[in-house]
């Protein structure tokens, strides 16, 4: 375990250069790539998540740590076998039809990615039929939708209906968010979950997929 402490620390600090160097050293020393990931990178990210939830870490520190991990993964990916790395789950995300506001959606996507989910970001103004098409194409575990305006919120139930009509509703969980969205609304439109912020979205996604 102590073999990877320097790597974990570099992830926690968001020191990309040091983390990449540590990853290289670990591989040169003959460590298994899976150990580098689990005992080094993920251990570091877990501590980052811990400190964030205790209010000791700020969002930019968390995002920098996630970026550090991603840079290290670039070295590790080629060494892994096909289907070897199982992400926590695949999430399709986008703002709904008519809504162009994506700061919140982007933040949620980054936080989910940092927490180990694979993200397919459909961008902004995504019509229901495109959500359906991309669900068919990507087979995600979760579809995540965002709306900032009350005038675009109705596109959320429309998208859920479209997913239902395509016979895909039981294959994905749907979670929603955005300024005018409430828990009550999330229930009314029969989505599977709502979160008020990006940290909450990570917990909700884990909850929906039964990840501790």
């Amino acid at each position, binding site marked *: 375990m102590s073999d990877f402490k320097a790597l974990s620390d570099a992830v926690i600090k968001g020191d990309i250069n040091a983390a990449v160097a540590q990853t290289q050293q670990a591989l040169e020393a003959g460590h298994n790539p899976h150990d580098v990931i689990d005992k080094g990178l993920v251990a570091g990210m877990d501590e980052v998540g811990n400190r964030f939830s205790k209010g000791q870490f700020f969002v*930019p520190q968390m995002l920098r740590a996630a970026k550090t991990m991603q840079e290290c993964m670039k070295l590790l990916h080629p060494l892994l076998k096909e289907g070897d790395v199982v992400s926590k789950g695949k999430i399709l995300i986008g703002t709904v039809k008519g809504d*162009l506001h994506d700061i*919140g959606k982007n933040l949620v996507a980054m936080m989910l990615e940092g927490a180990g989910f694979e993200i397919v970001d459909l961008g902004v103004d995504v019509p229901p039929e495109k959500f359906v098409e991309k669900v068919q194409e990507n087979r995600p575990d979760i579809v995540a939708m965002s709306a900032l305006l*009350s*005038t675009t919120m109705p596109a959320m139930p429309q998208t859920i209906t479209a997913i239902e009509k395509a016979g895909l509703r039981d294959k994905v969980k749907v979670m929603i968010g955005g300024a005018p969205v*409430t828990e009550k609304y999330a229930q009314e439109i029969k989505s599977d979950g709502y979160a008020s912020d*990006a940290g909450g979205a990570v917990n909700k996604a884990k909850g929906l997929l039964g990840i501790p």
Partner: protein
Amino acid sequence: MKPMGIPTFQPRLKVLDRKQALAIHNAALEILEKTGFKMEHPGALEMLTGAGCRVLSDGRVRLPGYLVEDALKSAPRQIALHDQKGNKTMPLVDGNPFYGTGSDATFTIDVETGQRRRAVLKDVADFATVIDALDNISFNMSMANPEDVPEIKDIYVQVFAEMVKNTNKPLVFIADSGRDLARIYDIACLVCGGEEGFQQRPFMLNYSEAISPLRFPENVMERLIFCAEKKIPICFPSGANAGGGSPITLAGAMALGIAENLVGLVVHQMAGKGSPFLFGPNVSTLDMKHSIVSYGCPEWSLTQAALADMRDELYGLPVWAYAGASDAKVMDAQAGAEAMFSIVTAMLSRCDLVHDVAFLEYGFTSSLEMAVMADEYIAMSRFFVDGIPVSDETLALDAIHRVAGQEPSSIFLMDDHTYEHFMQAQFLPRLIDRSRHDAWAEAGSLDMYRRCNVEARRLLAEHEVEQKPETVLKEIDKVIKRN
């Protein structure tokens, strides 16, 4: 000849000097010339390219600085907003501050139960009624994003009509598209007895915003152009919030927000030369722990004070600002401190139109108690900014001579000079409590929140809003139903 009096200095806050103001302005111009922006409205794009903008291979528009200078020259330096009865109650000129509420809070603190709940259309009416009654709050915004409108696509028309029915103060309003705006304009003309009446005495200002960084959606530009053509006053503040829509450092955030505002101004003045445009972005901060846009942070007060300085140094146009809001979830000490901090600094820096009064929870929740409290804090700030008049009358040498010369020495409380001046010489609070403890206890030991609650409910029960003629109300209902 009468000797000249001593003018009263009115305390004033400055946060930028001329060099800083110029550097931020130049940075804004460089953003427009080098980085460029995304213009998604074909008509606006055509106007811009026709005037000398270039679209480079990245699809982004580059705007030369001279277009900005032209637009700054043609935009009017004062905007006179009237109330709905035609009185010029809000002359936005010379840094004369006017305060009002905000719009589209998802929740409200129910004035009866004290519970946070989803906002409904009646909240729009209640806020309008209370604002109508408050002396120091000059204009009204919807406050609520109601969940119970019959047709969600008509939400902004419904909300506007609700405001018109429940207050006669000037309105700041939101619309979704040009179609919304056309119906809202029709309602406004009904209130003014026709288009000419509205043009002579405009009582409303549209709030539209670009998306930071540097994105100008079609429906937003549609509204901007409609307002320019119809001479409906408009503000165009993008959410250039430091760390979210714009850089974390305030100078860069201001430069970006101003650049976005200048694009709006340029298109606006091309579409309607000389039409009124209220200048200024919203430059708050994105909270680095909770990723909310803060409505109580010192940064927003600082950037809008800086913007007022840039108005005085460079732009000359009245500016858009915020105050009287909080990130607190309930009306507690944090809410009071944050509300007062922004109210007094907006006053001291002479922001012109100051919105968002009465928000809690970073603009997600509205509170009638906050509105009532802010009314008093605005009066208190205004008293401070009025300064200390110095004259024979206020130096009161005669009174000093009179009182001190009496045997046994009297106190000033009994002197005629006190009787004659106390109403002006002192700030006389209504809700701020200075009573003695036993009297306070006897009255129920009410804290500021509960005193404001009592006052808000009293205003709702007792204040009568002067109603519009029945014929006008009927016509308004027809416009709401029209598609």
